[in-house]
């Protein structure tokens, strides 16, 4: 089945990233498809390329990037949720004249419509918060 994943919990401060990532891997192992992981609310922080976890800690950002590369799953960050929280892609940094961008290249920025469209196409939707 085609599963759409929504994550809303913050990087490091919640278990959200780990729970969602474990679920996604188990879904792939069971033969399902994760079409998209959509990062909303504080979940947008899971896309930053400036996080430096300790060596023995879960490296959510890079684990998502690796998961996406291996299984062709799209990592989509909500544009308005990211802008409000200072999670910025390269294009936005130019648009707003900001001193830099901080979104990992494995992620891309989209509006909430992309979440809605993915929900319509998916067989199941699951939220982690």
């Amino acid at each position, binding site marked *: 089945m085609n599963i759409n994943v929504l994550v809303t919990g913050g990087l490091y401060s919640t278990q959200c990233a780990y729970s969602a990532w474990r679920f996604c891997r188990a879904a792939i192992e*069971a033969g*399902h498809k994760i079409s998209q992981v959509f990062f909303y609310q504080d979940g947008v922080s899971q896309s930053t390329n400036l996080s430096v976890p300790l060596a023995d800690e879960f490296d959510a950002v890079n684990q998502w990037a690796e998961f996406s590369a291996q299984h062709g799953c799209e990592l989509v960050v909500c544009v308005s949720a990211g802008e409000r929280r200072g999670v910025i892609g390269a294009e936005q940094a130019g648009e707003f004249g900001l001193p830099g961008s901080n979104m990992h290249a494995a992620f891309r920025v989209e509006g909430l419509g992309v979440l809605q469209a993915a929900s319509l196409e998916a067989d199941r*939707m699951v*939220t982690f918060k």
Partner: protein
Amino acid sequence: MTTLFTLNKSWYDSAWLYEQLVFASEGDVVLLMEDAVLALGSPITLASFLAKCSSANIAVYALIDDVSTRGISNQYPSVNLLGYNGFVDLLIEADKQVAW
């Protein structure tokens, strides 16, 4: 239509939700994860919630990874422990998920 209710909030913080049976009804499934597994170690805390679920034919599961991470010893035989693969199966078997 059946619904998978996932719950990541501790009973000690969110008793109101448990009192409403997490808004589940007959045939639905509840999965306790993250902090929701904390009360599994106390033989009285979840007794009333689980009895009501049982009489309403609502199956209750708990994510074993979160249980063992927290050093909890599950006191409730009616709560089935499962891994992330079981979690995936529950989502597929249900029509949708509601995440509390």
